[in-house]
C-alpha cells in the first residue's frame, strides 16, 4: 500500500508561478491505498501493541541491580583492560609500545626498563587511563604477544577520578615465557619486582593536574625519575 513503482514516475513540465518547472508526476494512489486499507493497517498496528502489552515476556528491560546474581554478559563484551596472566605472570615480552602507539587517544603509557638479571628490555609499568579509554580494542589487536584482553567487568564507578588511572601489571619483570623456564621459585621471585596500583608518574599522583593534591601520601619510588616535566623522562 502506498508503494510507487519507480518506472511509473513521469517527468513533466508544468507552469508554476509563471515559470516552466520540470516536475516528477507520480501515479494516483491505487484502490489498495484508500481509506479502508488505511483503517485496516491502523487496526493491525493496534493489535501489535496490544500483543506487547499483554505479554510480560516481551519486556526487554532488566532490573539492575536486583538481577546481579544472574547477570550474564557476552564473552567479548568490553568493559575493562587487563594484562593476560599465566600463573601470575604477564605476557608483555619486550615493552615494544605497539599498544601505546595504536591507542587513538593516548590512554596507555608503557614504561620500560633494562632487566638486571635477563639483560633485556622489560616492562616496568603499564599505565592505563580508564577515564579516557574508549574500549576500541586497537591495543589488543596491535599486541604481537597477545598480552592484553578486555574483560566484561563493568562496575567501575569511582568517586575520585584519580582512581581511574592505574598500573595494570602486578610486577615489573620478564614475561611468562621467560619466567616459566626458571624452575626455582626463589630465583623466579627475584626477577619479579612488585608494582603497586597507584604509584607511578601519571597524574594519579597529582603531579600534572593543577590544584589536585596527590592521592594520599608520598609519590612512588620511581616518580621523580619518571616525571617527564621535572625528571629526565623514562629510562631506556
Amino acid at each position, binding site marked *: 500500500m502506498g508503494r510507487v513503482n519507480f518506472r511509473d514516475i513521469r517527468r513533466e513540465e508544468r507552469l508554476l508561478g509563471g515559470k516552466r518547472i520540470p516536475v516528477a508526476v507520480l501515479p494516483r494512489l491505487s484502490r489498495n491505498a484508500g*481509506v479502508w486499507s488505511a483503517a485496516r493497517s*491502523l487496526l493491525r*498496528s*493496534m493489535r*501489535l*501493541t*496490544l500483543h*506487547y*502489552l499483554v505479554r*510480560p515476556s*516481551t*519486556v*526487554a*528491560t532488566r*532490573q539492575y541491580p536486583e538481577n546481579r546474581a544472574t547477570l550474564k554478559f557476552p564473552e567479548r563484551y568490553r568493559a575493562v583492560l587487563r594484562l593476560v596472566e599465566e600463573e601470575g605472570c604477564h605476557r608483555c615480552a619486550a615493552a615494544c609500545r605497539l599498544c601505546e602507539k595504536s591507542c587513538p587517544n593516548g590512554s596507555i603509557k608503557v614504561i620500560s626498563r633494562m632487566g638486571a638479571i635477563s639483560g633485556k628490555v622489560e616492562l616496568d609499568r603499564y599505565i592505563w587511563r580508564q577515564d579516557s579509554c574508549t574500549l576500541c580494542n586497537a591495543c589488543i589487536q596491535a599486541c604481537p604477544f597477545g598480552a592484553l584482553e578486555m574483560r566484561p567487568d563493568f562496575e567501575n564507578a569511582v568517586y575520585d577520578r584519580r582512581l581511574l588511572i592505574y598500573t595494570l601489571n602486578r610486577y615489573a619483570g620478564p614475561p611468562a615465557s621467560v619466567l616459566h623456564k626458571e624452575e626455582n621459585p626463589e630465583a623466579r621471585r627475584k626477577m619479579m619486582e612488585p608494582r603497586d596500583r597507584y604509584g607511578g608518574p601519571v597524574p594519579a599522583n597529582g603531579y600534572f593536574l593543577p590544584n589536585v593534591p596527590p592521592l594520599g601520601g608520598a609519590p612512588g619510588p620511581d616518580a621523580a625519575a619518571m616525571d617527564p616535566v621535572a625528571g629526565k623522562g623514562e629510562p631506556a
Partner: protein
Amino acid sequence: MSGSLLWMTTSAAQASPWAVKTLTDRAAEALPSSPWLTLAYLAGSLAALGALVSFLGMSLIYVERKLAAHFQCRLGPMRVGPHGLLQTVADSIKLLLKEDIVPERADRAMHLLAPFLSMSATVLALAVLPYSPSLQIADVNIGALYITAVGGLGVMGTLLAGWSSNNKWSLIGAMRAAAQIISYEVSATLALLVVVLFAGTLSLSGIVQSQAAGWWIWRAPGVGIVAFTIYLIASTAETNRTPFDIPEGESELTAGFHTEYSGLRFSFFFLAEFINVFVVSAMAATLFLGGWMPFRVGGLDGLNAVMGLLPPGGWFLLKTCGVVFLLMWSRWTFPRLRVDQLMRLEWKFLLPVGFVNLAAAALLVLWNLYFFP
C-alpha cells in the same frame, strides 16, 4: 416540543428506576431549612472537584506511563514506591519546588494567566459530568452545549501561552493548536448532535437516562458507531494527543506552546491535558456507552441481576477507563500527523462524513427506525 419531552420523561421514568439528584439540587433543597447545609453541600462540591482533579491527574499520568512502557516492551516507573506507584507524587513535589520562570520580554500578565485559563476550562467541564445518579455536581439542562462551549475556552489558554512566551516556536505551536482545536470542535459537535437527536435532550443526565433501553452506540443503527468513531477522533485532536499532538510536537517544537513554562504553572498545563482526556472519555461514555447505565439485555433477568451488582458509579468508571485505555492505546501506536494532513483530515473527510451521518440520524429519528423509540 414540551409534549414530546413529557413523553420522554415518563417513558424514561418507567424504564429506569434511577432518579438523578445532583449536589446542587440537594443544596437548593436545603436552602429554605438551613443555609449552613447549603454552604456545606457547595463547599463539599468544590472540595470533591479539587480532590478529583488531583487524584485523576496522579493516577492518569501514572497509568499513561505504565501503559506506554508496556506497549513499548519496557517496564515504566518501578523504583519510587512498589512498581512506581508513588512516581507521580514525587514528580508533583518536584514540579512544585521548581523555579517559576517568566521570560524577560514576555507579556507577564498573560504569561501568568494562561495556565489558569486552561485549568479552569477543564474543571468547569468536570462539574457537569454525570458520574452516577447521586453523584453529579450540577445538571445543566444544556449540558452537551455547555461542554462544547467550555472546551472552546481551553483554546484561549493555549493561544495566550504561546503568544505571551515571546518565543517564535511557542507561537507556532499555539497557532497550530488553535487551528486544530477549533476545526475538530465542529466534527465533535456534529457527532454529539447525533446523540442529542436520538435522546431528545441536551442535558447529560437526560441523555444517560434515555439509554435505559440500550446504549446509543448500537441502538442507533449504523449512525451510532460512525458518530462514536468521529467523536473519538475529534476528541483526540481536541486534547492534543498523538496522532494530533503537533502543537506539543515533542520532537519538533521542544514543548510547543508550553516551552517557557516551568514548575507549578507547567504542571497546570500538564494536568489540564490529562484531565481533558478524562473529560472527553467521560463524554464518550455518557453519550454513546450509556454513562452510568449498566449493561442490560431485555429478557435475561439473571444477566441483568449480575450486571446490577456493580453500582452505577462503578459502571461509569469502567466505561470511562475503557475509553481512556483506547485513547492511550492509539497514542502509543500511531505516528504523528503533519499539520496539513491534520487539517485535511478534518475539513475534507471528517466534516462531510459527520454531516451525512447527522442527516441519516435525523431521518432515522423522523421515521422511528431505531430500536425501542
